[in-house]
């Protein structure tokens, strides 16, 4: 079946955060228009070629405009982009259309424009409700600007929004973290995503935090995580994926598409797609992308689908079947069976008939559990 999800990457930011290793650049406003044109050209060329081969497009159930900071781009440019997309794809009436937004970039007119185009979900990079933590993270916005952004999107008529957080940041105490969580809840978001800080190679943080002693320990990170899970659970959020929590019915369709190991289209610099059983990626070089947006490289071949599926679905609270373990495991049947019991006794997993799912505690050691079973 052809994909039902599309990812669009917008690689522009006001400033580059020191922990970010994703394809994004600051001070490239002069390239906005050229970039959107390149995106349009990529969509046009690839879709025409793809559908000409006889592939039947499926109606789209989710579109995610991620970044970078997509909210920097004015709506009229998106209008061009959307009209190109609509030439090739049919969007379902309840299609989830998400746009990422960073506090400090929210513009009332832009928001109204996005809404008009069909955007119906906003993901706000709040990261923290503590000024000191924002500073440590190198975020250039204040807590007040985050609050202002939430008000603006509500005023523009958006009711479905997500708040993004980072925990396990140097200097973060349990109290600071708890305050941020409660502050987030006070805005009643439909969705909360929260990641522990990862020190990525090639980022300024790699050098600043060369010595792991200056970072919170894994044990601390785990305490923060458990606090998050517990608090959100008590407040009516479902922990439906390792890092994602939602009010019932507001789980992100786009995210679920990834974790269910389904295919998806992707356009833009550095974007990764999964199409026709192949995972391919676009160049990470912005100038190269603008001059030729059609080059792709294969990132993984051949794909071990069963392995990927268990790796991805194990992140979801719906879990995975015992049969899917049998398909990929290199371990002895008896060993796996004992291990499942041990993991259950240890409170890492729960078993319902032939379905396994990870508990909150289990989710934070997701890899460790997979390694025990496969």
């Amino acid at each position, binding site marked *: 079946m052809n994909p039902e999800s599309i*990812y669009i*990457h917008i690689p522009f930011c006001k400033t580059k955060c020191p922990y970010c290793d*994703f*394809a994004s650049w600051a001070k490239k406003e002069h390239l906005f228009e050229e970039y959107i044109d390149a995106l349009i050209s990529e969509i046009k060329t690839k879709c025409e070629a793809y559908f000409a081969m006889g592939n039947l497009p499926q109606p789209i159930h989710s579109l995610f405009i*991620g970044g970078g900071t997509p909210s920097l781009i004015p709506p009229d440019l998106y209008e061009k982009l959307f009209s190109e997309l609509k030439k090739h794809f049919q969007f379902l009436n309840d299609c989830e259309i998400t746009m990422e937004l960073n506090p400090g970039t929210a513009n009332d007119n832009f928001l109204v424009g996005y809404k008009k185009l069909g955007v119906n979900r906003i993901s706000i990079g709040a990261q923290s409700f503590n000024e000191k933590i924002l500073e440590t993270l190198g975020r250039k916005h204040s807590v007040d600007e985050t609050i202002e952004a939430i008000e603006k999107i509500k005023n523009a008529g958006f009711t479905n929004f997500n708040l993004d957080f980072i925990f396990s940041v140097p200097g973060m105490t349990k109290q600071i973290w708890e305050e941020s969580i409660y502050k987030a809840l006070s805005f009643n978001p439909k969705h909360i995503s929260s*990641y*522990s800080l*990862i020190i990525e190679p090639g980022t300024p943080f790699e050098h600043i935090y060369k010595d792991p002693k200056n970072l919170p320990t*894994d*044990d601390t*990170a*785990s305490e923060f*995580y458990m606090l998050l899970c517990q608090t959100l659970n008590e407040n009516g959020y479902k922990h439906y994926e*390792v*890092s994602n929590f939602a009010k019932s019915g507001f789980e992100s369709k786009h995210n679920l598409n*990834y974790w269910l190991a389904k295919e*998806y289209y*992707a356009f833009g610099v*550095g*974007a*990764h*797609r*999964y199409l026709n059983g192949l*995972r391919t*990626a676009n160049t990470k070089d912005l100038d190269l992308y603008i001059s030729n947006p059609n080059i792709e490289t294969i*990132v*993984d071949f051949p794909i071990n689908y069963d*392995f*990927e599926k268990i*790796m*991805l679905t194990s992140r979801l609270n719906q879990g995975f079947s015992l049969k899917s373990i049998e398909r990929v495991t290199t371990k002895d049947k008896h060993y796996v069976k004992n*291990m499942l019991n*041990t*993991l259950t006794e*240890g409170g*890492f997993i729960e078993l319902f008939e032939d379905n396994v799912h990870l508990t909150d505690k289990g*989710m*934070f*050691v*997701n*890899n*460790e*559990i*997979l*390694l*025990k079973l*496969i």
Partner: protein
Amino acid sequence: MSTKLNIRNFCIIAHIDHGKSTLADRLLETTGAISKREMKAQVLDNMDLERERGITIKLQTARMEYKANDGQDYVLNLIDTPGHVDFTYEVSRSLAACEGALLIVDASQGVEAQTLANVYLALENKLEIIPIINKVDLPGAEPERVKKEIEDLIGIDTSNVIYISAKTGLNIDQVLEAVVKYIPPPRNTIDLPPRGLIFDSYFESYRGIIVYFRMFDGRIKVGDEISFMANEKKFIVSELGYLNPGQLPQKELKAGEVGYLAGFIKEVSSLVGDTVTTTSNRATEPLIGYRPAVPMVFCGLYPIDADQYPVLKDALEKLKLNDSSISYEPESSGALGLGFRCGFLGLLHMEVAQERLEREYKLNLIATAPSVIYRVTKHKGEVIEIENPAFLPDANHREKIEEPFVLLHIFLPNEFVGNVMELCQARRGVFKDMKYIDTKRVQLTYDMPLAEIITDFFDGLKSRSKGYASMDYELIGYRESKLVKLDVLIAGEPVDALSAIVHSDKAPYFGRLLTSKLRELIPRQLFEVPIQAAIGGKVVARETVSAVKKNVIAKCYGGDITRKKKLLEKQKEGKKRMKSVGRVEIPQEAFMAVLKLEGE
């Protein structure tokens, strides 16, 4: 019959780093046996492992043709020798195939313990020795002092000493002339029944065992039916020839010559040291000059993946064809499953063998800590030998334990004497003697348990002497010691493969060091892992590895799940290097923790 053969068979004796391989290369180059272009640096060290470690383990042999100043053509066979304390046995095989030896001594380092031991072996074999002082071009060179040292310490005549630089090629021609002039030619016994001394062998799947040998008497031709005198099996020679150092097929090999032969030889356990003869003109007596190797260090080798047991068995069989000094016997461990107890000449030998098994046979192995053979007397006077600490009978079932002792010689600059004596003391050494070799250098002599030497003594010696000390030892027999078995329990389960036999006075301290080292080496797991050391059921030390709390990829950036997958695959690969014991995964290094204890 009485014509002298224009053949010279010789080897090189040198301490590690004194320039043996460089000289060998220079000889090959000068005689044109191998061109500069073909020469990777140091052709004779042809195993990757040897080149990496800068040592020679497997023997290599090269035939050179040389026109001497007397106008005659000579064949010079260089039989290479290993230069490490573990490989005395291999040295003895090479020596037995030669009439002479070049003794290389570094012009600034002087005579080292190992050099001395090998010269004595050469003298026992009645070899003519040509002293050569190498690296005379270097700034710190003191050739005259070193020459006197050779006279005083070794007691050989140095009137014919040659000063060379193998690196620059200085006086290499003099070395070649000296080989022709001083080393006696082989006896011309071509009419006697054929006898060849086997000094090396290795296995190939297509040609069977390839034998390296020195013909002493008679001749062997392609097509001859041969047999080995310690072994009644018969084979037809399918191929034989010279080693230059590649294999150069010939029709026959005659008395005095050195070469290889093949004959689809299979199912022969050990050939090295044996005598090859023909069945049609069978010799009556085997050649002498052979000292069998006695493994002194034992460890368990277990496949991490139990399915690899047959592969390991096959690999050990083949390795033994190539290195007859290795011994192996099946054993089983509660913690590690089926494996082998293997015997080696020393610690380096053991490490090299393990690395070869892993590389050449793609095995993932757990090696347990090295042990010696303990002699245990039970109550009714019955004496048993224990190669595996796990099998030591309980204290109430034994009368006494004896362990092997060695006579240890250490050569070192005098400023490190204090440091090194401290080390020897800590390792239960019994001081015997200290003497000055010259104003700066000292020879220390100790009686010491072999078990102490094989647990990282050499590294300790090197670090306490800034790398200047050298050592050599020989087995002197068994002595009674106050020994106990230290057991290790992981997650409450005894892990037999981690048991160690230690001196009772040091046992609790040793237990603390060991558990603390294991805590470092065993990675955090899903569950807390207690580690205990116990003597006779009484816990003497305890540590805990806390549980892993985080191992997850938080985020999938823009649909890039490949990164996550690669990390997971890498972690999975890492786990393959670990052995599951109960529900605990123990990395390979942990089984060698005993060797990495600091303190003392």
